[in-house]
C-alpha cells in the first residue's frame, strides 16, 4: 500500500494543495477579484474573459468549470465575485454542495471598492483558517490524476507517453482515479481507444463523441493539417495527425476505460475515465482540474510549459535537447529510457513515485515558475 500526505475536505475528498480561491464569475469582475488577491496574501485568483451573454451548453460548461475549480479538493475555501447576484448564486450553490466555506459577492449597487473591501475581509479569515489545515496520510486510491501531452514529438510516443501508461497501470492497480482525453488527437488511433472501453455502450458513446468532434472541427472548411500536427510537432519529427495520435494513446498503457465523460464532468468511477477535451494544453488541464483532478502529469517533447492555478502539473520529457535547453520546466528527465539506461517498468515507477511526492507537497517546476494558466473552453459565440 502506497500513501501520500493530503488535505481532507468536508465531503471526504482529498486534496494535495490548500488554496483559498478567488473566482470572478465574469470578465467584469476580474478587477475586484484580482484586487482581493493583491490585498490578501496567500489567495489564488483565476481571471478569465468570459461569463456574459453566454447561453445553453456553453454557459453550462463555463459554470461547471468555475464551480469545478471551487469544488476541487485542492481548494480549502472560496470567495466568488460576480457583477450581479443571480448567476453568481448558481455557481455558489454548486460549490456549497461540497460543504466547504464559500462566500459570494455581487458588484452592482456597491461598486468595486466596497466589494473588494468586504471580500478581502472574508478572504483574510479564510487564509488564516486554511493555514491551520494539516496534511494527513491517505491511500493513493484517493488520488484523481489527469494526463495530457503537449508540443509532442516522436520522443513522446517512444518514451514519455508509454511511461505515463506504465504509471497509470500502477495507479489503476492501486485503485486511483485517472483521466485522459484529447479527442482530436486520437484521430488515427480511435479504433485502439474504442477497444479499451469496458462495455459496448461506452464504445458507442466514445465513437459518437469522437465523430461529433471531428465533424465540428472539419465544418469550418479550414485545412486542419496547418494546426495538427503543430509546427513544434513537425520540428520534432511528427509528420501526420495519425502518427501524433498513435504516440498520444501510449498514455493509456494497458488500462481499460471504465467511463466516458463530457467536458469537466466529475468522474463517478475509479480507474481510467475518458473525458471529451480539446487537445490544447491549458484548456485540457483546466477541464481535468474542473472535473476534480488534484494533480496532472504532462509529457512534452519540444517543450510545452503549461501550469495550472490550483493543481500541480508534473512535466516530463524524454527529449535530451529539450531537457538541456528548457530544464527549468522539467520535473522528470526521462531521456535515459531512450538510451536504454532503464526499462519502461522502472520509468513508470519513477514517475509514480514523483506523483506521490508531488501529492505530498513537493512543488513542481510549473508552480515554482508561476505558471497559472486558467483557460475555460468556449463552445460557440455569445449572444
Amino acid at each position: 500500500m502506497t500513501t501520500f500526505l493530503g488535505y481532507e475536505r468536508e465531503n471526504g475528498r482529498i486534496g494535495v494543495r490548500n488554496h483559498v480561491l478567488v473566482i470572478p464569475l465574469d470578465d467584469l469582475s476580474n478587477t475586484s477579484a484580482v484586487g482581493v488577491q493583491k490585498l490578501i496574501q496567500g489567495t489564488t485568483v483565476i481571471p478569465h474573459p468570459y461569463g456574459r451573454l453566454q447561453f445553453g451548453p456553453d454557459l453550462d460548461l463555463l459554470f461547471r468549470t468555475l464551480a469545478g475549480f471551487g469544488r476541487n479538493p485542492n481548494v480549502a475555501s472560496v470567495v466568488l465575485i460576480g457583477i450581479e447576484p443571480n448567476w453568481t448564486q448558481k455557481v455558489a450553490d454548486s460549490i456549497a454542495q461540497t460543504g466547504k466555506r464559500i462566500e459570494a459577492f455581487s458588484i452592482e449597487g456597491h461598486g468595486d471598492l466596497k466589494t473588494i473591501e468586504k471580500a478581502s475581509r472574508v478572504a483574510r479569515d479564510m487564509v488564516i483558517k486554511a493555514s491551520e489545515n494539516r496534511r494527513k496520510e491517505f491511500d493513493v486510491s484517493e488520488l484523481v490524476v489527469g494526463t495530457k501531452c503537449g508540443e509532442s514529438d516522436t520522443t513522446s510516443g517512444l518514451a514519455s507517453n508509454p511511461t505515463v501508461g506504465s504509471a497509470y497501470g500502477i495507479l489503476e492497480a492501486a485503485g486511483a482515479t485517472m483521466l485522459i482525453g484529447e479527442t482530436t488527437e486520437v484521430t488515427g488511433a480511435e479504433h485502439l481507444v474504442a477497444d479499451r472501453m469496458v462495455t459496448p455502450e461506452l464504445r458507442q458513446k466514445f465513437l459518437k463523441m469522437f465523430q461529433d468532434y471531428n465533424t465540428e472541427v472539419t465544418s469550418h472548411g479550414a485545412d486542419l493539417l496547418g494546426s495538427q500536427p503543430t509546427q513544434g510537432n513537425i520540428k520534432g519529427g511528427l509528420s501526420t495527425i495519425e502518427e501524433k495520435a498513435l504516440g498520444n494513446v501510449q498514455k493509456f498503457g494497458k488500462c481499460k476505460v471504465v467511463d466516458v465523460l463530457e467536458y469537466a464532468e466529475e468522474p463517478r468511477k475509479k480507474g481510467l475515465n475518458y473525458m471529451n477535451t480539446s487537445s490544447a494544453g491549458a484548456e485540457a488541464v483546466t477541464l481535468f482540474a474542473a472535473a476534480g483532478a488534484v494533480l496532472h502529469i504532462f509529457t512534452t517533447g519540444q517543450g510545452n510549459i503549461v501550469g495550472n492555478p490550483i493543481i500541480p502539473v508534473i512535466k516530463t520529457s524524454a527529449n535530451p535537447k529539450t531537457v538541456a535547453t528548457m530544464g527549468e520546466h522539467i520535473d522528470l528527465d526521462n531521456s535515459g529510457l531512450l538510451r536504454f539506461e532503464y526499462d519502461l517498468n522502472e520509468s513508470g515507477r519513477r514517475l509514480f513515485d514523483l506523483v506521490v511526492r508531488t501529492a505530498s507537497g513537493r512543488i513542481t517546476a510549473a508552480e515554482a515558475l508561476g505558471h497559472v494558466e486558467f483557460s475555460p473552453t468556449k463552445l460557440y459565440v455569445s449572444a
Partner: protein
Amino acid sequence: MTKKFWVHSAHDSVGVAVEDLSAGEALTGAYMDTGGEVRIQSSAAIPLGHKIALRDVKKGDKVLEYGEVIGAATQDIRAGEHVHTHNVKSLRWG
C-alpha cells in the same frame, strides 16, 4: 554497438532516430516489441526524433509505425531516407 534508432513494431516501415544521424552512417536499431536488432544505412542526415525508412515504400503506399498506418507516401521513398512531411501525408481530414 550503440542503438541509434528505435522501431515500434516489427511491421513498421520506419524507425525513429534517438540521436542526430549523419548521412551514410551504418546504423543499428532495436525493435521495441521484440528487442531484436535491425541494421540500415542512412542516406540523409536525420535529426533526433525524425524517421528513417527501413525499406522501400512506393508512392501512394501506406507508411506504417506502431504497426499502424500513419499516412501515405507522396513520392517513392528508398530505404535509409528521411521520412517526414516532404514525402508522407495524412490520410485524415482531407
